[in-house]
């Protein structure tokens, strides 16, 4: 069963697993099988070490102090920004804004890009498979300013219906905001085609890459998207740190998102002069250790190689699809032509929460519920699904353990 894993040159999953200390954990006396990576990934040793190193030898506030530690911390912080720039192949480190996560990145675009000058009836176009974080910010603008939220449909496999998507683009479309990879279904969205449609009509595009960056190499210049949002913690990096990439010209023209320290050049009670990019959007003391951990995580991911990671995960996804489909009564939800990292499913006659509790007793961690994508659940007419989601350290044997656990669930309920 593991030959496919071993046959990928240059990628040794056993060796990768050694880099993640938590994977040695026992849960209820069983080895941990962690399949909740779309919620958050585990952290490799280099990320943990970088944070430790920061607090043991570098901790200081950045951008202000003239003392040694402040310079060390500032350098580490800004070096991480350049790492993100290279990771996304952005043109300039000033295009990299640190946020709390993809959610805040999207809210920043809503507040500082879409909101100013928005007129009632202006539209934002999304898809039916967005995470709540790419739905609710637009609804807030709908309630406040009369924005119209348009939603492009998906088919029964979980693929975006591109013809319908294109029909929903109108002269009032202010922004196209779509997920790059669906967190609930695993669908890889054809963002290049979407961006081509948008370019032809001069409409800016925001991509929610929270679920994409761990599985797909992203090149923002090749994509030619205007904004790209992602979270560190789904990419083996710390929680509480995320990124908004934006094209310089757009970011320059946007008003700040929050006011405070670091985002100003000068302040009097009469007038404040805002700082340059990217600091204009980074008010207050930032999540310094998060940024440094993010830089270390990107180094780690790059050293393994996203190509090798994607190929390995593809093997495990295929194997998982095969062994899960063989479980009686199991239905895979989300069978898009191109998928990454996610196996959503339901089991006849068993609520996903019961599946989750029983699997937990086997040491298997999956997510059950609506995955912050309730419209997707409605589309497939289920209240919730069970979801196994993959990372670079998962193995075919773990998917075999999941399938065996699911047979046990079926036994408990059908006895």
């Amino acid at each position, binding site marked *: 069963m593991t030959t496919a894993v071993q046959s990928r040159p240059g990628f040794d999953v056993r060796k990768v697993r050694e880099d993640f200390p938590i994977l040695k954990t026992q849960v*209820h006396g069983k080895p941990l099988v962690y399949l909740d990576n779309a919620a958050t990934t585990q952290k490799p040793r280099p990320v943990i070490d970088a944070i430790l190193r920061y607090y043991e030898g570098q901790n200081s506030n950045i951008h202000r102090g003239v003392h040694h530690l402040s310079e060390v911390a500032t350098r580490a912080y800004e070096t991480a920004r350049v790492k993100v720039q290279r990771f996304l192949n952005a043109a300039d480190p000033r295009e990299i804004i640190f946020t709390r996560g993809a959610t805040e990145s999207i809210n920043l675009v809503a507040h500082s890009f879409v909101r100013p000058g928005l007129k009632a009836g202006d539209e934002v176009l999304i898809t039916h498979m967005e995470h709540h974080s790419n739905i609710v910010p637009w609804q807030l603008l709908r309630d406040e300013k009369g924005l119209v939220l348009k939603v492009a449909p998906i088919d029964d496999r979980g693929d975006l219906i591109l013809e319908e998507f294109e029909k929903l683009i109108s002269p009032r479309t202010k922004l196209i905001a779509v997920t790059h990879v669906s967190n609930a279904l695993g669908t890889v969205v054809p963002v290049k085609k979407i961006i081509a449609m948008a370019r032809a009509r001069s409409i800016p595009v925001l991509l929610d890459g929270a679920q994409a960056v761990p599985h797909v190499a992203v090149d923002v210049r090749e994509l030619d998207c205007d904004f790209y949002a992602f979270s560190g913690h789904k990419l083996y990096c710390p929680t509480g740190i995320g990124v908004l990439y934006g094209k310089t010209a757009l970011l320059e023209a946007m008003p700040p998102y929050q006011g405070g320290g670091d985002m100003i050049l000068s302040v009097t009670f009469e007038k404040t002069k805002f700082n340059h990019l990217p600091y204009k959007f980074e008010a207050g003391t930032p999540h310094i250790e998060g940024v440094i951990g993010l830089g270390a995580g990107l180094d780690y991911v790059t050293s393994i190689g996203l190509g090798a990671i994607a190929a390995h995960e593809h093997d495990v996804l295929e194997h998982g699809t095969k062994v899960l489909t063989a479980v009686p009564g199991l239905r895979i939800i989300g069978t898009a032509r191109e998928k990454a990292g996610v196996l959503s499913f339901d089991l006849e006659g*068993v*609520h*996903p*929460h*019961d599946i989750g*509790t*029983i699997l937990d*007793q086997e040491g298997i961690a999956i997510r*059950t*519920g*609506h995955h912050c994508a*309730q419209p997707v*659940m409605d589309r497939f007419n289920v*209240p*919730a699904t069970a979801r196994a989601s993959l990372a670079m350290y998962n193995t075919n044997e773990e998917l075999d353990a999941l399938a065996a656990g699911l047979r046990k669930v079926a036994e*408990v*309920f059908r*006895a």
Partner: protein
Amino acid sequence: MHELGDLYQEIILDHYKKPRNAGLIEQPTCSAQGDNPLCGDKIAVTLKMKGDAVEDIRWKGAGCAISTASASLMSEAIKGKSKAEITALFDRFHAMVTGKGPSEGLEKLEVFSGVSEYPVRVKCASLAWHTMKAALEGQKDVISTE
């Protein structure tokens, strides 16, 4: 840690597969809606009162085994009881599933004692009870476990 069998006991599975008192009373004396946003469980409880006592109860909902069996067993447990008796039973049930009280004397409801070992599932076991209590007390808002 309890063994799995303690949570998914035969009686729970039986009430999950064959829920008792399912449905809705057409002209209830009082009713309430309950919502567990965590797992998308929803329940409606309708009561027919005779004086101070619950003469009939019907409920409708879709949820996990724990929440469905809890609604089903609750409907059997409270039928014919007075408001004061039901409130006392609610308090004892709630104490048991949150691990703050004993299970002794709760009869069939004792099968839910294992729930206290699963903190995230306590809401599943208590949703029907909170909703029923809201109906009894005439609360208008949807009851949420969040």
